[in-house]
């Protein structure tokens, strides 16, 4: 194609069009006004005006989680860019493909502490796969295509392109087809699966007596769920997933052990503890999974499938490693495994654990109390699990992981590696844009987390998104309170969230329906009402305040240290010994004594 001539800003949009971008989440400011001027005239792109750049970043992540496409977000120079940092880091930790575009001060004043100057490429160097400061407009079109290529290839992740305001305005003459043919000789992402390694894996599999498949987010990224299922069904091997693997293997399958790790099921953790072969597929041996590494799956040989060579032997030495796309690898492996392998003894052992130590929950039938786990189970039942779920971070997140019972990949969207409170609502909004108006997205949130990106409510209202927000309100930073209860003698330091806005009024203020539910009898009606209502709904479930997530393997410990259920024999001391609920009234003016006098 012939060369075309345009501004840098327009060239940037043209690159987005060519990369198939349909939606971007952003917030304007001085350094990106020229870009927003082009967006104003743009007819192929939906721009969602977020209310905080962090929200925009998480929306791009949620969109990407739900669709597998690259999420795109925009911020202006300085504070706009720094507000994106948390979301970029979150995407890095969870391997989410994302392109962040930031404005920068004029090239000639870079390095002079100009107004709203921040060295965002310096700041994000450790939390991006790569980033660019584009000082020459002639580089901009090519860099944009490189950015998308790097974000989505190999192990996915975020990249950032920083563009000075004058570069947006400068004129570039370029061949748009030519710049799309990128070749980065120093970037290797298409690792070919090694046939010999696949054969060795098959040999280990044939010898295994007590095998377990350990499936992570990489299997989802590869779209390998059918292959994972085929492998499990052909061999009869049980399957446990990480937090990010949830849904890759349907939890109603008899071979499913649910999630493993710190808050995984007892039987999944026992299975890993006792297995003689651990087959890790796109999972990275995170410390929330392994606990004490030297004691993790001590008697097991390990087969490790990962697309990132850096993950192999990083935490746990693999006996056989298969670098490359795990979909390709599983395809090669499947014909080599035997369907007649007899592991019935092992399966019986697993079933016994399953019966002895099931996941427990309180449905309130006995004592009328309302428990977060129960609300989650009811949401799952009433929606027929035919929804996307996002979560925030804390106890509610773990309960959602344990009790929802995921059925399909990309159904469960959560912040795992960084554990970012405030992720849930914007991620739900982004996911909703991704899956469209016919599928509800449920945001399971906590009263603490929800307040961290609460401003994005208005976006859900404006676009009438079917986002159903269930705040599991325990009036505590529950997860931290749990640690303080269990390991810090109930020193409830700074976890009390009793003083909170009235979430129902907040919903109304933001123009959506707000519902409160404070007893078991109303749970179903509340959920049904939310399902029947078009557009966003916010539910404030007033759940039991002080309950803990079990099972739990305390940080850095072993399966032997697992606390399977709430210890019952111990007489719980009243929670007043160290913890005095504060006087939370606002001081009356007369009451305020000037202590200085």
């Amino acid at each position, binding site marked *: 194609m012939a060369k075309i001539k345009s501004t840098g800003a327009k060239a940037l949009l043209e690159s987005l069009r060519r990369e198939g971008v349909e939606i971007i989440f952003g917030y304007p400011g001085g350094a990106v006004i020229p870009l927003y001027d082009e967006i104003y005239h743009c007819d192929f792109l939906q721009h969602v005006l977020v209310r905080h750049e962090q929200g925009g970043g998480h929306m791009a992540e949620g969109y990407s989680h739900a669709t597998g496409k690259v999420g795109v977000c925009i911020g202006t120079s300085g504070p706009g860019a720094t507000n994106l940092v948390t979301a970029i880091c979150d995407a890095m930790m969870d391997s989410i493909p994302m392109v962040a575009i930031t404005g920068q001060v004029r090239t000639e004043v870079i390095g002079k502490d100009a107004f709203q100057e921040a060295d965002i490429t310096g700041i994000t160097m450790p939390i991006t796969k790569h980033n660019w400061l584009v000082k020459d407009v002639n580089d901009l079109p090519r860099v944009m295509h490189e950015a998308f290529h790097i974000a989505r290839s190999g192990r996915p992740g975020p990249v950032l392109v920083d563009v000075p305001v004058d570069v947006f305005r400068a004129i570039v003459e370029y061949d748009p087809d030519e710049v799309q043919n990128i070749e980065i000789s120093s970037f290797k992402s298409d690792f070919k699966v090694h046939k010999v390694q696949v054969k060795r894996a098959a040999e280990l599999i044939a010898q295994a007596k007590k095998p377990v498949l350990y499936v992570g987010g990489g299997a989802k990224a590869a779209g390998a769920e059918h292959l994972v299922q085929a492998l499990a069904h052909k061999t009869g091997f049980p399957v446990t997933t990480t937090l990010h693997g949830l849904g890759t293997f349907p939890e109603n399958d008899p071979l499913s052990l649910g999630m493993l790790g710190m808050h995984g099921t007892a039987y999944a953790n026992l299975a890993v503890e006792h297995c003689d072969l651990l087959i890790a597929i796109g999972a990275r041996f995170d410390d929330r999974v392994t606990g004490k590494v030297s004691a993790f799956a001590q008697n097991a040989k390990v087969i490790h499938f990962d697309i990132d060579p*850096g993950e192999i032997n990083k935490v746990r030495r693999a006996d056989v490693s298969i670098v490359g796309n795990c979909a390709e690898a599983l395809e090669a492996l499947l014909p080599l495994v035997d369907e007649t392998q007899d592991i019935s003894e092992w399966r019986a052992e697993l079933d016994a654990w399953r019966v002895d130590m099931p996941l427990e929950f309180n449905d309130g039938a006995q004592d009328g109390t309302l428990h977060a786990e129960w609300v989650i189970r009811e949401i799952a039942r009433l929606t027929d699990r035919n929804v996307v779920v996002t979560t925030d971070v804390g106890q509610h997140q773990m309960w959602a992981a344990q009790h929802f019972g995921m059925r399909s990949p990309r159904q469960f969207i959560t912040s795992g590696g960084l554990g970012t409170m405030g992720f849930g609502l914007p991620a739900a909004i982004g996911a909703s844009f991704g899956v469209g108006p016919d599928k509800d997205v449920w945001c399971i949130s906590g009263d603490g987390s929800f307040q961290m990106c609460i401003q994005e409510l208005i976006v859900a209202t404006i676009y009438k998104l079917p986002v159903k927000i269930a705040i599991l309100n325990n009036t505590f930073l529950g997860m931290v309170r749990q640690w303080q209860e269990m390991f810090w003698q109930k020193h409830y330091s700074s976890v009390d969230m009793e003083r909170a806005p009235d979430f129902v009024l907040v919903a109304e203020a933001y123009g959506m329906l707000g519902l409160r539910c404070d007893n078991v009898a109303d749970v179903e009606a509340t959920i049904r009402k939310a399902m029947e209502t078009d557009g966003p709904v916010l539910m404030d479930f007033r759940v039991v305040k002080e309950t803990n997530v079990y099972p739990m393997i305390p940080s850095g410990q072993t399966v032997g240290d697992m606390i399977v259920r709430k210890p019952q024999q111990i007489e719980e001391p009243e929670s007043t010994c160290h913890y005095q609920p504060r006087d939370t009234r606002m001081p009356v003016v007369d009451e305020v004594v000037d202590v200085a006098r």
Partner: protein
Amino acid sequence: MATAIAAQTHTITVLVDNRPGVLARVSGLFARRGYNIESLTVSITDNPNMSRMTIVVAGDADTLEQITKQLHKLIDVHKVFDYLDTPMLERELVLLKVQSEPERRAEILQLVEIFRGKVVDIADRAMVIEVTGGGDKIDSFEKQMEPFGIRELVRTGRIAMMRGSRTV
């Protein structure tokens, strides 16, 4: 996987794009992953678009494996070579300013001779000596100079190359 053996050192050569910020990316990677750099040199190469880094790192074989893999993930990095089981040449250069009272000069010059060094500057009470060689040689030259009084010293850090006709 921890070993009780005192940390070994390894030399690695990294070919990178000759672009601003590359050094920060490489050194940032070492810092945040807790790898210890003993020395790092950057130089031009026969290709103007490429720079060559020689990094001496402390750590066991597992650490070296991780360093190599993580370096490969940086987009600016073209090649990483770790010289494991490869005969190699290593060189450093030192400039050493030593106190040289006239009556002790001969003694110093003799040592310079032994180490095949060069006197590159001389003043009334000091001279600057240049020595090249492996790290051990330079260490021991320094030790020999200590009794005379070392006034200032600068070392380049290690550079390395494979022996034979192969190239990185």
